[in-house]
């Protein structure tokens, strides 16, 4: 009775559904994590606690190989996409809106609107032709493709940061005879930095999670962790996949917590 607003905003059954949703959202993930510590190979019958699947996964040469490839691609794609997204954000925010800017926004957000399978197929066609023409089969194609679809994820937090920035700071630096580069280096960049790091993290996670585009763009023997896992899930179910999933999950949560702390509004 104390708080009337609380009772007004209460709708019958809503809280029950919400609590159910949170439980159902986490239950499957929790089961997946629990069974990565299973003594046996079953994903349903508990055969005692064991850590065996983690060293097993680590000693599997193929797993190490695909993990390294995933990390290489994700690091390169995150760095490239964040750099170009930072430049684009500097070029599109904090000025009068023009027609051209709508085009830039549309292009940057385009990877979010087109179904991934369509982009994947389109890249397969184009890159297949380039592979034949140049003979180059390396990781460059995957890094380029990943950089492209990571751009919107890197751009959003940077733009949010820039829009909240006090423009007079740059004017002041200019008045004090700072060159444009000095202004950028010592005024703008330190302010944008949290946004850029947040963008870097989101881009890294996005690249690390990708399945479909990687599946179509990769050359033979260029499996990444997700495409390797997809093949494993199809073939046979082993708790080794649970162990790998758990590690990926932990990495995602760590990066997200970092992102969360960086972008949190200071109160």
């Amino acid at each position, binding site marked *: 009775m104390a708080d*009337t607003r609380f009772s007004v905003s209460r709708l019958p059954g809503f809280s029950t559904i919400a609590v159910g949703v949170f439980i159902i*959202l986490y239950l499957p993930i929790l089961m997946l994590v629990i069974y990565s510590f299973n003594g046996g190979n079953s994903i349903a019958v508990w055969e005692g606690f064991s850590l065996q699947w983690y060293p097993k996964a680590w000693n599997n040469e193929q797993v190490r190989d695909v993990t390294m490839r995933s990390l290489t691609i994700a690091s390169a794609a995150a760095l490239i996409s964040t750099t170009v997204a930072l430049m684009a954000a500097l070029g599109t925010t904090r000025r009068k809106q023009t027609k*051209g800017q709508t085009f830039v926004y549309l292009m940057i957000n385009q990877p979010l609107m087109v179904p991934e399978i*369509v982009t994947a*197929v*389109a890249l397969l*066609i184009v890159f297949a032709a380039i592979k034949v023409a140049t003979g180059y089969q390396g990781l460059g194609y995957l890094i380029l493709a990943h950089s*492209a679809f990571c751009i919107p994820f890197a751009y959003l937090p940077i733009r949010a940061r820039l829009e909240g920035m006090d423009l007079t700071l740059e004017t002041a630096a200019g008045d004090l005879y700072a060159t444009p580069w000095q202004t950028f280096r010592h005024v703008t960049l330190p302010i944008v930095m949290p946004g850029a790091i947040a963008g870097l993290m989101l881009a890294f996670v996005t690249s690390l999670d990708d399945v479909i585009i990687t599946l179509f763009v990769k050359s033979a023997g260029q499996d990444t962790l997700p495409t390797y896992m997809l093949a494993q899930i199809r073939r046979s179910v082993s708790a080794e996949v649970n162990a790998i999933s758990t590690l990926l999950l932990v990495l995602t949560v760590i990066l997200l917590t970092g992102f969360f702390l960086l972008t949190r509004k200071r109160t």
Partner: protein
Amino acid sequence: MASLAEQRAERRTIRNGWLLSLPALIILIVAAAGPLLIIVIYSFLTPGSYGNVVWEFSWDAWVGVLYSRDIFDGTYKLADAHLSIFWRSVKLALLTTMFCFVVGFPTAWFIATRTPRARTALLFLITIPFWTNLLIRTFAINQIIRNEGVLNTALLYLGVIDEPLVIIYSDFAVFLGMTYVYLPLMVLPLFAAIDRFDMRLLEASYDLYATRWQVLRRIIVPIVKPGIIAGSILVFIPALGAYVTPRILGGGRNMMIGNFIELQFGQGRNWPLGAALSVTLLVIVGAALMLYVRASMRTTNNG
């Protein structure tokens, strides 16, 4: 003279803006937008015998989207297999969107009506699955519902059932998986809309003897409509083009458009048909986006 200098300065900022955006635009045109134009061209070519294409113009791929040619008398008839795949995709995407709304709306409402501290924590809890690898989450569902999975093992142990429930590799399994995987995409925009909702409107409605149902229908839903539309679009588009979830939970026979497209580039060896199907999917998504833009413009005009 001052205005001339101002004009020049303005032109310079515009030019610098373009130059700064250029690297991002180049990457996006080379590795995202440009290739989309090329699939349009490929949809009008002739399939090569070992995949890829022969550069000869042909309508066959576009005819093949809906019709199949009888091998014996060469007549065209509607391809039932293709139609059933389209129907399944649209049906599952719509069902997923509706069910995500039905459970997502109460969840978003629940989060928005908590204390600020609890709200931040709950939002974070919704965001984690959103950023967690889709493959891992689909795999987690697979482990729960498969015949020898956790659900069946538990139910058998408890004596509720005598034989395992066969859920996996069905349309229902795909629907279940997609709802699970895409739910955060519905909850987040709904939350953003409800968060701006003025709770005093509820007090006013109840003072005027509105029932809870009337308040929900006549006050809450119209006001948070932009969030409902945004959430529905965000769920519908990836659900329609889903590839991973139907592949892991639907098995080989319960294909959706995404898997059907992949098939044309793999065993099917019919790249033009795959390209035509991709363009079809793109057009459907474009239509959904147009509806979204129009609907959100109408709601902002009314509001």
